[in-house]
């Protein structure tokens, strides 16, 4: 449907835009930036911070440009004296309520409030300080998320994120007037509510009111401890995003530089979560085929569709919201948590180290993985399997602190072993990637042939649509898989928990006829994870996803079962997928939780 055009003038320049466009968007089309705080491209309009006000000729009020659609003949000034005065007042008011200790603040340099306040050179502090002492007590109950009310500007981005993108509603606005604030159910600590630790609210918080719990100092401490052997693993999605911390384009493929930087930081071995991503495919693919066989041949009651389990935010969501469907979850641990116990058993033995002296650090796009590492069941090695989890952002911070000029580093390679991987592992970082990797391997196990897609790129499972469906017909199954001959394997993919809910409700109602479902808690999958560089928006996530798929195509090996180190570990240690050792080290169980 073609839209009506609306003609208006912004700063005396005529422009014609689609009906329904906001003044803010129209101004952006003319390359005028209007400062914003509560507005976020991923979220519905709030119109509450008011920093984006503009002057409209003939109007008594200053409309909020983010919340006001254009109208015919409108004449807008984005920087008139009236606007400047109002905007300065508004920023000063926000600062009066704000514990502005920028020099000590984790968000400094990345902070939207700081940016605006710098732009307007707010320095006079005309108004009275309103920061409440009790707001300065930070909530550090969660291993993933830190909440500091003294930094909150009440923009409600976090509330909208948690409601509309994640369907969790762990955060809510409570009280009114001077006591209005962002809180949880019954003001409980973050660790005691339905929060999934996904970190999406952090990614959209303009200030330091919500940040990840950071463990940078702890990690430097063990790096410099001569008695500790510190190995680091890096998740697939970090390598297309860490460059942003150094001003590079989103999606820049900087795997080699990242490895070089990690060595310079002093990690003893630089290893790859991608290795265990390949291993996950072997375990999870086998688990799926086993479930299908039990259902179709043995006539057993098995939980289908099977749901992927590599996103700890998703896992906690399911434990809270759909505890009755926990049997459908794959028992596979996430690649991070497969890596930990293998490092402290198989690898420790190979390199002749006492696992008690080993420290496993992970670099993750994710805040939920901090919580995951703390789960009591994640001690398959007899020790805490993963000791510290750092976000992509924290790694960026460490590299800055260490004075390493990231952009100028020469590419280096991962150490061996636990360093080899395939293209199938790297695509774990994007929505649909686990599915694609699983199909590449499972199809070949069953038929002996490659998946029937050009260049094995399974396009239907890719892309940013919230819920994706695809179907792959099995042709020429090998004799032992003959029960799958002609079967349409139906798969579905959801990213962002609001989309997960759509699929889960379909399963609950019996509407779904899927065999296998991939779910990632974060929009776009891990590339949009709660630990990734800020800002985030659809365009940035698309660029990171493009980086992921380029990385895949550039790999020599692109199917998990072709990973030679994976073959080796099965030969010499695990023996077979779903075997005893795997059961002990690579699989887990889940905990039903309450909704509040």
């Amino acid at each position, binding site marked *: 449907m073609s839209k009506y055009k609306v003609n208006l003038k912004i700063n005396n320049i005529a422009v014609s835009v689609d009906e329904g466009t906001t003044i803010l968007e129209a101004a952006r089309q003319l390359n005028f930036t209007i400062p914003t705080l509560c507005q976020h491209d991923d979220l519905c*309009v*709030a*119109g*509450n*911070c*008011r*920093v984006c*006000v503009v002057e409209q000729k003939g109007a*008594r*009020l*200053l409309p*909020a440009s983010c*919340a*006001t*659609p254009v109208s015919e003949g409108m004449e807008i000034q984005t920087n008139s004296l*009236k606007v400047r*005065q*109002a905007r300065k*007042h*508004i920023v000063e*008011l*926000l600062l*009066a*309520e704000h514990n502005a200790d920028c020099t000590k603040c984790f968000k400094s340099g990345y902070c939207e409030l700081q940016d605006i306040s710098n732009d307007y050179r707010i320095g006079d502090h*005309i*108004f*009275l300080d*309103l920061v409440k002492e009790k707001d300065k007590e930070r909530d550090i109950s969660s291993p993933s998320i830190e909440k500091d009310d003294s930094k909150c*500007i*009440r923009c*409600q981005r976090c509330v909208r994120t948690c409601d509309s993108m994640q369907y969790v509603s762990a955060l809510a*606005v409570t*009280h*009114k*007037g*001077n*006591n*209005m604030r962002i809180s949880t159910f019954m003001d409980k600590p973050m660790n005691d509510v339905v929060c999934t630790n996904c970190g999406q609210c952090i990614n959209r918080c303009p200030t330091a009111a919500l940040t990840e719990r950071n463990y940078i100092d702890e990690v430097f401490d063990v790096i410099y401890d001569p008695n500790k052997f510190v190995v680091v693993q890096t998740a697939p999605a970090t390598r297309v995003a860490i460059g942003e911390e150094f001003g590079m384009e989103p999606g820049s493929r900087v795997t080699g530089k990242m490895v070089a930087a990690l060595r310079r930081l002093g990690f003893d071995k630089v290893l790859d979560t991608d290795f265990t991503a390949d291993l996950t495919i072997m375990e999870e693919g086998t688990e799926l085929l086993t479930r299908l066989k039990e259902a179709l041949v043995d006539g057993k009651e098995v939980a289908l569709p099977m749901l992927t389990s590599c996103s700890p935010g998703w896992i906690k969501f399911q434990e809270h919201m759909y505890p009755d469907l926990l049997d459908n979850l794959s028992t596979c641990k996430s690649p991070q948590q497969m890596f930990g116990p293998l490092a402290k058993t198989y690898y420790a033995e190979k390199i002749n180290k006492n696992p008690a002296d080993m420290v496993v650090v992970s670099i993750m796009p994710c805040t939920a993985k901090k919580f995951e590492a703390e789960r009591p069941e994640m001690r398959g090695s007899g020790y805490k399997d993963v000791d510290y989890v750092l976000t992509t952002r924290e790694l960026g911070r460490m590299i800055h602190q260490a004075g390493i000029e990231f952009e100028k580093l020469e590419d280096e390679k991962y150490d061996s072993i636990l360093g080899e991987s395939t293209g199938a592992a790297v695509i774990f970082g994007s929505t649909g990637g686990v599915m694609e990797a699983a199909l590449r391997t499972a199809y070949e196990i069953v038929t002996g042939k490659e998946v029937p897609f050009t260049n094995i790129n399974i396009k239907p499972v890719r892309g940013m649509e919230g819920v994706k469906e695809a179907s792959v017909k099995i042709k020429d199954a090998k004799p032992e898989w003959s029960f799958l001959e002609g079967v349409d394997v139906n798969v579905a993919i959801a990213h962002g928990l609001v989309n997960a809910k759509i699929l889960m409700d379909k399963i609950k109602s019996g509407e779904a006829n899927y065999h296998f479902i991939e779910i990632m808690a974060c929009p776009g999958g891990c590339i949009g994870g709660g630990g990734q560089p800020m800002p985030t928006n659809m365009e940035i996530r698309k660029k990171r996803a493009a980086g992921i798929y380029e990385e895949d195509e550039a790999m020599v090996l692109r199917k998990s079962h072709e990973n030679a180190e994976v073959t080796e570990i099965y030969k010499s240690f695990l023996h077979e997928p779903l075997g005893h050792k795997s059961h002990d080290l690579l699989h887990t169980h889940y905990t039903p939780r309450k909704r509040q």
Partner: protein
Amino acid sequence: MENKMKKVDLIFDQVDHLAILDKSLQRTQDEIILDVIESGLRGRGGAGFPTGLKWKFAKNEEADQKYVICNADEGEPGTFKDREILTQVPDKVLAGMALCGYCIGATEGYIYLRAEYNFLLPMLHKAIDKFHKELKKRDFDFSIRICSGSGAYVCGEETALMESMEGKRGEPRNKPPFPTSSGYLGKPTSVNNVETLVFALMIAQEGPTQFKEMGTFDSRGSKVFSVSGDTPTPGIFELELGMTLEQFVNEFGDGDTKAVQVGGASGFCVARKDFKNTLIGFEGIPTGGSMMLFNSSRSMYNILNDYLEFMEEESCGQCTPCRVGCQQLVKGIEAVKKGVKPPAYLEELQKLSDTMRIASKCGLGQSVPNPFNSIIQNFREEIIY
């Protein structure tokens, strides 16, 4: 103008509300709406939007459902006239809602009743049941329900009211879209004050002329006032619009009136020297009905402080100018009083209140400057010393 105020009896007059409705149902919607426009009736809830126009906008919307909401939240300090109207002439309010429903094409109406008025519920339910039966006899499809208010002043603001009715937190919405195009549950909705609905009914009965001939050019007709404060005769009075404050004070004052707060906490304070030149109405000082008289025993600092503390607490808190602005005004006058800030700080605060007026999201924040500036301007000394 003659020096006597005209008392009027349009609102509380007992009339045959069903006869008015029957007569109206014989006419077209457009005819009635034109009459309401012609009468010059403007909303009595505070904002003063022309009622006929509001109905016309709502009527012109295409939708499978539309709603009529009677705003009986009456949270403005010093107003109690809607309670009185609902008590005395509930049938007229119900008929006014049905009339609005007929005009705009809505079959459902809601009364959003202030939580403190819940004691009216049994009586209202009875009246509604009776009214429904009468409508059924006439085969007229319209039903009324009551929605109990949430107890927050801001929920009287029409969009916060609808959020609250939808079970959400009472935070005002962005406008546009206006309720007449997207209101309750996203459907075209006409929100009208209790008193407005009764006037509309009376205009449907009498035709526009009688109403139009009362009052002034911008403020036609009469208005129900809630008179309180330092007055020997507090209470509810329906008066012709267009009187001066001098006339008003002569009637209601105790002989020592130093100021009148017109329009409650969101209204203006007028000092004695201006009584003569101040007209009560849209060309002068508009009011939703609250008239508070203060005599010379009152401290204007305390009065201003009370209003500001009320706003500071009752702000929904979502938007910066209002949430933080109110706190700054409260703390600011205290700082000046205590000498922590110099008297000139009041000018900074007045500039701030100008920002609140033009940059706040809803009428609450936008009207905090009314009491603030008017009291500071008239009683600067009392605030400082």
